[in-house]
């Protein structure tokens, strides 16, 4: 882990007045939270308000700047902040700014085809433990290779959506035309290369836009390109060392890993910028007439690799549920704060208007198990009790196998949370995965045990059938 500033590095640069304006008890408490990156420096109003703190402020901003700078694409609520990474491994602290998924739109799409594609991208969603998974932005590709067409499509696109946009063309004339058309939307420009850095850099400086530095010919070349663009005054950079799939995947993973490791652990600020991966590249190998599913399969594998290995934004083409569900799930998993406990509190939960006749189900206190069951019960809108048994944070299946979920434990929980005082029946619905301990549970607890569905998605139907309280 690279050196992140500690509270004691930060504290001397704060006003030290313990004014509590930030909401913390004192400056030391604020320094501690800053060191954990759980508060923003701007919460310290006096630093910004009072001239005498300017020197401190400048030093402080420098001190707490993440080893990977943050770049903002787009404007308004939908703007995508990428990068801002603090650590190489999520267990070192956490990953900030979930990877932004950009889906491509060709500038040759016209009229309805364009608006339908944009709508499909915006509408892609899936409900996952209480949150709507979504995509993040649109990558406009300059397939036409005509600057006017590209600029026109950019203009059209920006009128159709307030989502962040990447303008994608290796031809600076194309970028110049489109950047001019929608500069106020703060698109990301893709890309400056070893051949076009001068022109592309100038466009970025002129419109004050973020720019991708793309150099697939090796990391030294990429570093040189960054060095040059910075000398030109381009401040917001995103790096693309090239994304090769299949037999190129090892090299790609290696390049991304070197860049991120150099920035975080190696404290090499020259490459301390967000990384962009382009799994969409797999479509270059797509053979006409071949099954698109195979190319999509490769795109998912490439994207998943780059989600694990340090990309901050990805450009993909596929818009299917089967391709993007695993990718958005993976992002969501890896960007979960690792200090989030594996276990939720054991106890008796109530859903809806419960009464003495309401069904009683039980589950384990593994957070993911609990939240999944909770979300299924809520979505079904049923009235029910849910007894959460302490299995030391293990799922039903593992807890049964590992003897963390036993008849005794279930009986103890029934007793401890006084379930018999809540309902007038003595019927307990067990998870399907815990069927093997149901007989024993009946013996030990004195409750009748009905085995419920294997997966909690079956709960609504199971309760609806009403079999649980039949003799």
């Amino acid at each position: 882990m690279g050196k992140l500033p500690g509270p004691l590095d930060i504290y001397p640069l704060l006003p030290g007045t313990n004014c509590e304006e930030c909401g913390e008890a004192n400056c030391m408490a604020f320094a501690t939270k800053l060191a954990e990156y759980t508060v923003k420096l701007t919460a310290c109003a006096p630093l910004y308000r009072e001239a005498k703190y300017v020197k401190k402020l400048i030093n402080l901003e420098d001190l707490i700047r993440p080893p990977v700078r943050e770049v903002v694409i787009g404007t308004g609520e939908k703007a995508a902040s990428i990068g801002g990474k603090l650590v190489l491994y999520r267990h070192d602290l956490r990953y900030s700014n979930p990877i932004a998924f950009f889906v491509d739109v060709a500038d040759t799409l016209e009229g309805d085809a364009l608006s339908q594609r944009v709508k499909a991208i915006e509408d892609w969603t899936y409900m996952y433990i209480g949150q709507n998974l979504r995509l993040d932005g649109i990558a406009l590709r300059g397939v036409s290779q005509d600057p006017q067409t590209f600029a026109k499509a950019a203009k059209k696109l920006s009128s159709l959506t307030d989502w962040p946009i990447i303008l994608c063309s290796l031809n600076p004339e194309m970028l110049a035309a489109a950047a001019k058309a929608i500069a106020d939307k703060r698109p990301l420009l893709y890309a400056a290369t070893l051949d076009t850095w001068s022109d592309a850099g100038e466009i970025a400086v002129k419109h004050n836009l973020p720019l991708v530095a793309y150099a697939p010919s090796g990391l030294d070349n990429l570093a040189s390109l960054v060095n040059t663009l910075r000398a030109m005054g381009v401040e917001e950079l995103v790096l693309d060392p090239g994304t090769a799939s299949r037999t190129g995947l090892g090299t790609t993973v290696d390049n991304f890993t070197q860049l991120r490791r150099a920035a975080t652990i190696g404290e090499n600020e020259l490459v301390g910028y967000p990384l962009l991966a382009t799994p969409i590249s797999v479509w270059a190998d797509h053979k006409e007439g071949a099954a698109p599913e195979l190319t999509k399969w490769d795109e998912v594998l490439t994207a998943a690799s780059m989600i694990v290995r340090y990309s901050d934004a990805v450009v993909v083409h596929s818009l299917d549920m089967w391709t993007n569900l695993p990718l958005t799930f993976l992002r969501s998993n890896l960007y979960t704060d690792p200090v989030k406990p594996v276990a939720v509190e054991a106890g008796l939960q109530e859903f809806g208007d419960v009464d003495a006749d309401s069904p009683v189900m039980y589950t384990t206190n593994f957070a993911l198990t609990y939240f999944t069951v909770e979300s299924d019960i809520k979505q079904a809108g049923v009235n029910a009790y849910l007894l959460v048994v302490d299995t030391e944070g293990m799922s039903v299946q593992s807890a049964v196998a590992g003897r963390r979920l036993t008849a005794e434990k279930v009986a103890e929980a029934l007793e401890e949370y006084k379930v018999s005082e809540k309902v007038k029946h003595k019927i307990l619905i067990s998870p399907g995965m815990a069927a093997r301990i149901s007989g024993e549970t009946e013996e030990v607890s004195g409750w009748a045990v009905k085995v419920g569905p294997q997966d909690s998605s079956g709960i609504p139907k199971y309760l609806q059938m009403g079999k649980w309280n039949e003799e």
Partner: protein
Amino acid sequence: MTSNEEGRGQSLDDIFGDFAELELENVTIQVDELKLALRPMVQQLAQAAAKAAIEMPKSLIPAQLKAPLGEYPGVIREITIGATKKEGGSRSNTVTIGGHTAPAWDLFQSPPKNPPVIAADVFDMPIPLAKAVKTHYREVLEDPAEWAKLCVDKFGADVITIHLISTDRQLGDTSPAAAAKTIEEVLQAVKVPILIGSAGDPEKDGPVLAKAAEVCEGERTLLCSATIDIYEPIAVAAKEHDQIVLSWTSLDINDQKELNRRLIEWVTPDQIVIDPTTAALGYGLEYAFTMMQRMRLAGLLGDSELQYPISSGTTNAWAAREAWLKAPELGPRELRGPIWESVTALSLLLAGNDLFMMMHPAAMKTVHDLIEWLRERRPIPVEEYADWTTIDIPEGA
């Protein structure tokens, strides 16, 4: 400057600090304004100063990226599973996992010593399976020997795990002797190394795995699994018959160290593979991922209690309902299921896993491909990077 600085009690130097060297001659500032708009002001000045200094570079300004090498004093143990005739067993080959000296796939540091391997799950009785999986095994569900053969001959499994679940008191309560017979049939049917899986029945696992260790004498099999609750009979059997033990814990690094310590009272460090538990993509994968990554790094950094190859019950990916749910709006489950297993495996592959216990043939093929692809680091000619900004992608794809 026109303002009364003394009256304000501070000097420009106080205010601008490090920026005192900025050229300010052409700037007129009212201190009141200055106070109100100080931040943007400072930024503007800084930017103006920076921009004034910019001279258009005439050519690329060279820079280099030094490979960010880490220091890893630890080495992950190399464990060989299976034994050929020459080595006292009956297998046609052995597989070796572990031996790493760097984090997984950090090729710039060092390539993996031994590539990961795939074990296909075979069960000794028909079990409920997701439809997308069952399709491939329908013909062999009643015959573990044929099942194993199919996995090796057709699906390219490197090794076979025979799960003796029928020994479970709830699932048939078959005897250790019956389990031994099944093992012998599988040993006859395939020539690759085999691993033995117990049912997870606290009363039966000990005797069943002990019997398995006995009938596999000389074969150097992996006994799956010893847990923090039931480890002694398994460790004793592994010691007596020179087998390997899978040390299985539940997403807890301290438990893992503790169990490994206890096992070491019987077996040598060359007889341990660890399994910190695999949770499915979307259902706790991050815990499994981070646990593996932490264990591997700890081992490389010198923690001898964690210097073991890692195994994953990747088939657990199918616990995710998104993998198997009949829901046309989520796309064909023939693709959804195996991609779920593949992506679960891929993330653990990148975290450092060495042995994958899997089921879907497409997922097994994919992970084999990924292992080959990830091993290679080569200068890729620039022409091989297509300009994706201009390619034609068929409509509707």
